[in-house]
């Protein structure tokens, strides 16, 4: 216990933050491997542009707006919790949850439209990557929403102020999910 305390004070980086960064570091090869494989395979083969033309660019753009905005709202929630303002913290966490849910609803609409038109994961290599990467990303969004929802309820109860590091850790994860989308959007919708 004493050793642990001494180590923690020497590093002076909160354990929650360090742990979250380690977790995010383990996520980088997961998405990075998929993205690297997609880029390399796409550079090495033709015919991808035709498949890309079938994805719904407008919905992808709206989802980009939602995720970028949610990144701003969750960092606002962190600033609010540090200012010891529970109402503002709750409001921004609630907004983040709503924006995340909006993202998932739009993604579900996209999937249903694409499946209706016959574009399923087995329709070709582009669609395998498309469903694999966006599906994995959507699962991460869902996990982030769950965490943010718990924090939101905690904020509404007024007991989040003494646990501001939780908002920071949740925020780090949420921003990471946003960064992944920043790369998925041009890879799958713009090129």
């Amino acid at each position, binding site marked *: 216990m004493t050793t642990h305390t001494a180590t923690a004070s020497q590093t002076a980086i909160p354990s929650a933050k360090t742990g979250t960064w380690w977790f995010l570091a383990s996520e980088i090869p997961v998405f990075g491997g998929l993205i690297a494989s997609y880029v390399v395979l796409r550079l090495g083969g033709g015919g991808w542009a035709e498949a890309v033309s079938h994805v719904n660019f407008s919905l992808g753009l709206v989802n980009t707006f939602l995720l970028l905005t949610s990144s701003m709202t969750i960092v606002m929630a962190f600033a609010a919790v540090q200012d010891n303002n529970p109402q503002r913290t709750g409001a921004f966490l609630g907004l983040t949850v709503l924006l995340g849910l909006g993202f998932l609803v739009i993604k579900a609409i996209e999937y249903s439209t694409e499946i209706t038109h016959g574009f399923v994961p087995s329709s070709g290599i582009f669609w395998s990557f498309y469903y694999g990467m966006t599906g994995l990303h959507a699962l991460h969004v869902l996990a982030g929403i769950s965490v943010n929802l718990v924090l939101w309820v905690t904020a509404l109860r007024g007991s989040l102020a003494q646990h501001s590091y939780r908002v920071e850790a949740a925020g780090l994860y949420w*921003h990471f999910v946003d960064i992944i989308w920043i790369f998925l959007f041009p890879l799958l919708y713009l090129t």
Partner: protein
Amino acid sequence: MGNAYTRHYLTIWIWLLLLVLVSVTATSILPKLQALFLIFSVAIIKALLVARNYMHLKHERVIIYAIALVPLMFVIMLCFALFPDFVFHR
């Protein structure tokens, strides 16, 4: 503290949206190769804006950078290792 941070975060958000607009516009007005270069440069800039400002990386210690950058280096190495196989030896 609150107002200064709010303004800063809002400014970054506006920059992010403007950069999305740049990417979208590039696809319709630039030749394909130039558009690709611009789109992915803009994506890297957006990711850096989020990481440095929203994830507060610009205030972090070297150890946090190391935790984040080491796996990223491996991914880039993977990309370069696979690249010749797929592109030149099909």
